[in-house]
């Protein structure tokens, strides 16, 4: 018994650390403008490819721009884009899932067919092809990601609603005269939040990787935006003389993705939703 409690408190402690780190990253990303000393887009060819100094803690890039500044702004862009597309996918997916799960019948069947069709196809490819058809650019890439991701949330929500709807407490609530909306709000919603949160945090890492890889090959964020993938693309020609220019953005991506994956794993254990999210 004691062991279980110990294990739990250890986990809670780790969780606190994780959340703190994540919150710090988000805060840095959101409030970069307060700590920035340099203009991220200011080209200064006299200072190009400078090594580490007091003025430029991580040196400057091939156009003399401060690397640290761009890296921090990159956090805002990279994490921001990831969160934005996730948020949009959730906002579209959840209502669809609720309606399909709650109403059932024809709407549900049509919806399921569309969802299955989307899920039968690898979303990376759809994102690449869609952003390709729309034309290279970060807006189109984000749109493509939302288009392929919302289905996952709709399906997850639908299956949660269908399982919960059949349970006795919902019947009891119905007998007591609670309206569909009331049942939804009071009883089903708490279940949904956990599941959606877990799936979203596991998705965030993947989306960030997708955005930065596609930005690297020129299909996402376009220069001079300091998105990390685009920064790597900028640094590529100089990677023999200035290896570090390639190291920083890469490490930044690894750090953020690692963080969101670990967070997702913990949330999954905490909400105990392994099965539903994975299926």
């Amino acid at each position, binding site marked *: 018994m004691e062991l279980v409690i110990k294990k739990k408190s250890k986990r809670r402690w780790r969780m606190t650390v994780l959340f703190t780190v994540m919150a710090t990253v988000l805060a840095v990303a959101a409030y970069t403008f307060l700590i920035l000393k340099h203009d991220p887009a200011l080209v200064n060819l006299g200072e190009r490819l400078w090594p580490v100094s007091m003025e430029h803690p991580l040196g400057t890039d091939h156009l003399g721009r401060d690397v640290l500044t761009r890296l921090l702004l990159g956090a805002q862009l990279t994490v921001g884009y990831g969160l934005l597309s996730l948020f949009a996918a959730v906002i579209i997916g959840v209502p669809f899932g609720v309606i399909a799960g709650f109403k059932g019948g024809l709407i549900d069947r049509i919806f399921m067919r569309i969802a299955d069709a*989307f899920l039968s196809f690898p979303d990376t490819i759809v994102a690449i*092809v869609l952003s390709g058809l729309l*034309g290279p650019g970060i807006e189109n890439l984000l749109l493509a990601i939302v288009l392929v991701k919302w289905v996952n949330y709709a399906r997850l929500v639908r299956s949660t609603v269908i399982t919960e709807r059949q349970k006795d407490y919902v019947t009891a609530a119905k007998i007591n005269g609670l309206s569909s909306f009331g049942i939804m709000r009071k009883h089903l919603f708490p279940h949904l939040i956990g599941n959606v949160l877990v799936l979203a945090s596991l998705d965030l890492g993947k989306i960030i990787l997708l955005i930065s890889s596609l930005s690297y*090959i020129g299909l996402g964020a376009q220069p001079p935006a300091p998105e990390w993938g685009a920064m*790597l693309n900028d640094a590529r020609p100089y990677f023999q003389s200035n290896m570090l220019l390639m190291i920083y953005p*890469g490490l930044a*991506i*690894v750090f953020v*993705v*690692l963080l969101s994956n670990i967070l997702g794993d913990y949330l999954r254990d905490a909400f105990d939703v392994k099965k539903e999210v994975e299926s």
Partner: protein
Amino acid sequence: MFRILVRRFIEVVIFVLVITFISFLFVRLAPGDPVLSILQVDDVSITNEQVNELREELGFNEPLLVQYGDWFTDFIQLDFGNSYLTNQPVMEMIMSGLPATIELAVGALLVMLGIAIPLGSLAALYRGSWIDQISRAVSLLGAAIPSFWLGLLLIDLFAVRWGALPTMGRDGFRSLILPSVTLGLAITSVYVRLLRSSLIDSLSHDFIRAARSRGISEMRIFFAHAFRYSLPPVITVFGVSLGSLIGGVVVIEVIFAYPGIGKMVVDSIRSRDYPVIQGYLLVMAIIVFMVNSAVDLSYRYLNPELRLKERKHGKWS
């Protein structure tokens, strides 16, 4: 089984219909006029007459739905038209790039198996040991490292600094090593963890204890019994994560300037060569369909329970 295949086929058809219609609309409504972009290739001034002629020839003056119908009939007959850029038939371009891409994908899968099987097995056999910890660290990091970054670092290390391997192009076996290793490492992490947990699960079953009591050697128990039983979930995930393999191929091909269909599609996206993009999409849909069907069939082979159930309930249930 037959039913599953039919259902899957219908799904693919619906998907292709939805996606092609969307893509068709995008192409027609896209900001750049395709007619202009075809004509502008030659850098000669364009007359209005030429534009109208080509419009008529490509059927752009018909109603949208008629256009879509015409286009779709060609499309399903694998006639994707010609590339706007090179005027080469799209199907020819795809067919010339496909072998290179398949080589790369197979190479990556071999690298993945070469890492995931030993690491996953050892982690399952020695749970909680240092090797288990290593496998956990490898899969956590593996899932977080962008494959393109890993590829760049490997290029820098092996090709530029040590000059041991070629950095780009496709020229024999040696040029395949770096791209395959990069892609292989990028997809390994999922399988290590999965194989581990699946093996742990199957080692705890009664049939393992029964095999031990019959005096079968541990080696044989592990490989002939436990390993086989733990494969279906791994294969399922292979079907599901096929996309990350295909998507990874695209990025890796661009980094290594490897002449497969992934690089082809990125190049055509850059030059807005729509027929090539659409052709790529359909070919991918076919590949995904075939792999997923093969995954379904392999279940029956690997899991005798399923076959028994089918025999009991009649063939088509």
